[in-house]
């Protein structure tokens, strides 16, 4: 049973990790907690749902299109809600982010209504038995796609020129711009990539839990944020680690302590880790730039 619960935790955690990446990338670049990220995730799930059910597009293509449209929405939110506030206090941008979050979820409520939509299962229901655990085809898909996306992101950030520019911008915006890096463009790309990952997580959770609602972004958005903080906000491997850990903590809390204290266990873990490592598991202590 322990291994089965561990698997449950890793699969749940991999969706948290994908959401956490969006938070952490944006924070790394402009030190903004993008609270509208949960709504990008919800938007991705709805786009995937509509493409699959209404337009009858094959699932894989719908998945990619949802990511593309999700990143478009992320860039639009950045352009309309955050860019005009770039020079004002960080608090204003944070309030703007909360406003964008409410606006998007209420817009979805207005358009789609509050009843849950059922996501059709794109795969035949198949279950694989191993000596230690059982895993379904959907779970394998979720796990593999998250892994692939995370590897692709790591490659993008570490090995490409744009990735290098992103890392430079994160380290020091002013110096990076002196080196000829177009900061606005880098910020746009960061939002695009982070939002694409959020939308991907939305589609995957859609096929995993089989329902899509306008308010679905709130809790996972919060959990993704917690995962990002847990791993050290601004740190990409940290977000992956934080997501997986949070998933495992939640499942283990439900399995071995009490299913009603599930969130309490997960958040208690957050508090304990932050007490001992205030910058998160992989985060470096913040240094004031002089």
């Amino acid at each position, binding site marked *: *049973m322990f291994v*089965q*619960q561990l698997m*449950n935790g890793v699969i*749940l955690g991999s969706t948290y990790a994908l959401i956490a990446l969006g938070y952490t990338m944006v924070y790394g670049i402009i030190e903004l907690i993008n609270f509208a990220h949960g709504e990008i995730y919800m938007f991705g799930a709805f786009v995937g749902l509509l493409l699959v059910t209404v337009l009858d597009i094959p699932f894989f293509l719908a998945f990619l299109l949802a990511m593309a449209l999700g990143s478009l929405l992320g860039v639009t939110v950045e352009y309309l809600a955050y860019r005009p506030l770039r020079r004002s206090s960080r608090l204003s941008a944070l309030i703007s982010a909360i406003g964008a979050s409410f606006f998007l979820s209420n817009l979805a409520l207005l358009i789609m209504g509050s*009843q*849950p939509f*059922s996501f059709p*299962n794109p795969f035949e*229901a198949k*279950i694989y*038995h191993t000596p230690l655990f*059982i895993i*379904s085809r*959907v*779970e394998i898909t979720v796990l593999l796609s998250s892994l692939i996306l995370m590897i692709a992101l790591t490659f993008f950030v570490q090995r490409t020129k744009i990735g290098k520019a992103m890392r430079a911008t994160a380290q020091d915006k002013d110096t990076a711009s002196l080196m000829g890096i177009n900061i606005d463009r880098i910020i746009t790309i960061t939002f695009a990539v982070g939002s694409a990952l959020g939308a991907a997580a939305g589609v995957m*959770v859609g096929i995993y*839990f*089989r*329902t899509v609602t306008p308010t679905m972004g709130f*809790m996972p958005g919060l959990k993704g944020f917690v995962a990002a903080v847990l791993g050290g906000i601004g740190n990409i491997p940290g977000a992956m680690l934080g997501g997986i850990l949070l998933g495992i903590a*939640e*499942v*283990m809390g*439900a*399995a071995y302590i*009490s*299913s*009603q204290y*599930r*969130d309490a266990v997960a958040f208690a873990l957050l508090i304990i880790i932050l007490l001992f490592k205030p910058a998160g598991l992989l985060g470096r202590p913040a240094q004031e730039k002089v």
Partner: protein
Amino acid sequence: MSRKSYWMIVTAAILCLAMAMVGCSPEEEAGVLKIGNVGPLTGGAANYGINVLRGIEVAVDEANASGELGDLTLKVYSEDTGGDWSKAANAFSKLIDVDKVDVIIGGVLSSESEAGGPIAKDAAIPTISPSSTSAGLTLDNPYLFRNCLSDEAQIEQMAEYAVNELGLGRFAILYTNNDYGVSLKDSFEAKAKELAKVVAIEGFMDGDENFKPQLTKIKQSNPDCLYIGGYYTEGAKIAQQAREMDLNVQILGADGLCNVALIEIGEEAVEGTYATSGFYPDDPTPAVQNFVTAYKEKHGEDPDMFAAQAYDAARIVINAIKTSGPSSEEIREGIAATWNFPGITGNTSIDEEGDTIKDVLILKVENGKFVRVR
């Protein structure tokens, strides 16, 4: 003016006033039988009260149109309590003393019936509640009846059905941690323990999506049945995730699962699920379909369980008038004698305490549809 003529004028004035009061009293309309109704038509519980009143209206319209009561015409007098039990006592008094009703259908909420029951008893006006489920409500009050099963009775019948008809014996319970879920869990656990074995009990929070930790634990205890104490969205997901984990046990639930969305979301995973319900609007029997059509025509929406139970309560009153007679006392005797009355919420009898004996409906998901199996 002499003392004598003064008294004569006063007496005459009082007499005139008394005669005027008799004249304007609504009591004397010939051939009209007055049905009172008490319920919340405003406030948080307004939906219940409005639907109850609408159900009564459908039954009354039907009886008046068909002429089944001969020259007698039924008329409904309704009083709003706003969901407040203290106003319920006044509402009962007003219906009895001012409107002079012959029979009352109400209250809707248990607190209303508890406040109004003694008043109806003192005035000897028979009262039947369509929906007050509190325990022992009708005890020691020969004028108070009800036409609804208590929550416990519904759930106990599901447990009995599972053991006796479906041959299940190892129950796992997964419930949502709110009033509704906890009461389902408590009642089902008590009855299932008495009849068979409860091997696992797990809870979850409202709006949860991931039930795998709980289901993994439940699977360890090797149950043959999973009772879901919750609503349809979570029920559908639990069913799917259970199937994904190869936990292929019989799924049972209560009226919270009885919504088409259960099947829309759960698809093949909820096939074969059993759930209890107070009313089933898709039941193809003519009585139910006639009611649903008439209700939709008059009120423009589908009837719910409250409307159906109120309709049945009104039909029980009408039946009592037909079999026993139109005076309040005769109606009381008629209601008390109700036995195996074919209501749209199931065959209904009234026991010696004035409580309902009724088989709760059991629905099953078959080929993507709810069908009534009992």
